[in-house]
């Protein structure tokens, strides 16, 4: 029934974050979308429509499972119950990819439902690496780790983010999910160069690229403050940064994330078409 074996990676095509309101459109004609990403936590119920839709979609599309609740950046231990739920999902679905975030969301058994930042130090490096090893050992597969959006900096950090991620890859053998919008948001917010970030990024480990929309605000000093809202179209400077990134990485699976104020399928498919064009312009 499931003909997406574990060793078949995501194709270097546009994908979209799956939203149930697009189900009928996707079944009818998904062009140019070649794969779908789901949020793991939305498919951890016992049954009903969400699971039935996912089973049906998985027969037609490679699926990327994207976790938002594992809290890999926690100071404390991973939640064993949640890891078991994740293993159950990954075991029956056998997705083309599993990814999670360089962030924390659970503290003291309370889930905060946001991707919260961590400093980049020897201590956090060791903790994150041990969590990733635990996840990969439990799932029996490699995972991809996504770079976060940053709104502020930690005085205690001793690693740059690309260096931190490179060291994580070296210690765990995980791959990376490079979110180009997050790079743009973080660089703007922290007044650094997004191109320099891409130049320093361990691109050999990249297994997937994310693109999404952001909101614009200002901090108390009037400096630009971009918010990673996933609520609108990808802006031109991020598309330009994507071209810059693809020139280094080569063609990669390219996801459009649009989680809030979700548009109709035609609008989302237009974003995917623009992603397809960006991929077309890249030498393999």
């Amino acid at each position, binding site marked *: 029934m499931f003909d997406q074996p574990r060793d078949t990676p995501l194709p270097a095509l546009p994908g979209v974050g799956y939203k149930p309101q697009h189900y009928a459109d996707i079944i009818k004609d998904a062009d140019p979308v070649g794969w779908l990403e789901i949020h793991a936590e939305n498919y951890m*119920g016992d049954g009903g429509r969400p699971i039935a839709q996912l089973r049906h979609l998985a027969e037609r599309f490679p699926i990327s499972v994207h976790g938002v609740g594992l*809290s890999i950046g926690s100071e404390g231990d991973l939640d064993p119950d949640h890891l078991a739920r994740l293993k159950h999902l990954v075991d029956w679905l056998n997705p083309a990819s599993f990814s999670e975030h360089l962030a924390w969301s659970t503290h003291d058994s309370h889930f905060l439902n946001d991707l919260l930042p961590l400093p980049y130090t020897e201590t956090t490096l060791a903790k994150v690496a041990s969590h990733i090893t635990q996840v990969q050992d439990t799932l029996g597969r490699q995972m991809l780790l996504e770079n976060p959006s940053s709104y*502020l900096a930690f005085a205690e950090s001793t690693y740059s983010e690309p260096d931190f991620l490179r060291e994580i890859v070296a210690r765990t053998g995980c791959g990376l999910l490079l979110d180009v919008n997050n790079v743009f948001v973080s660089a703007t917010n922290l007044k650094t160069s997004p191109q320099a970030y891409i130049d320093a990024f361990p691109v050999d480990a990249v297994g997937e690229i994310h693109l999404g929309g952001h909101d614009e605000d200002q901090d108390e000093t009037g400096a630009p403050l971009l918010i990673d809202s996933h609520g609108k179209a990808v802006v031109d400077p991020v598309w330009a940064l994507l071209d810059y990134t693809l020139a280094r990485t080569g063609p990669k699976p390219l996801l459009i994330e649009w989680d809030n104020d979700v548009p109709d399928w035609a609008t989302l498919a237009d974003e995917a078409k623009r992603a397809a064009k960006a991929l077309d312009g890249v030498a393999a």
Partner: protein
Amino acid sequence: MNVTQAAFRAGLFDPELPAPNGLQNPDGAQASKRFDVYRNNVAVGLSDALEAAFPVIRKLVGDNFFRAMAGVYLRKHPPKSPLMMFYGQAMPQFLRRFGPAQSLPYLPDIALLELAMRRAYHAADAGSVDPQSLGALAPDALLASRLRFAPAVQVLKSGYPIHAIYRANTTADAPKPVMKPENVLITRAGFDPQIHLLDQAATTCIAALKDGATLGETLVDDRLDLGATLALLLGQSAITSIY
């Protein structure tokens, strides 16, 4: 200055606290509004999850009341699991004690109903028993039988008209609720949970069957229409097997 996750979390939920020391703007100054981004994300994210979980409560109290109430709830009862689809389990008990909601005493039972509908939506799929297999049993054998129910099936009893209130806030042209006790059965024949009004005799019967009573043991109330009750359960694919 090292920022612990305990300090970060405390700051998220208490807007009176300054951002933890060691969080900086790009110019090196102590972060303030930048920390508020996380505060806002957490509050809006949890509040949105509660809105999705309790659409009828929200309709009953209005958007502004609901947002304010959600702000109190999410600080008192932050989620204990990353499964946001099940966030809000403490809402009935919260509403029982939440002062500003005391003028609407039926709210806790509506919250119980909305939680039950959500549980039914995500419950495991189940095959249903062939109605013929019940009809084929001799009367004695039928009365000695017990039923297994689909995981989505639930019975709720209330001193308030929960069926009428739920219908009036989810269905066009539903009649205005009349204040009286109502019990309901929740089923899920396909993917969409359904709510059915039960009389007292059917409520007692189905509750006993769910607890493992034989059909014969439920015949304690002369007002019970066992045929109609079984027809409802069979018609809604509520019974998975007889034994």
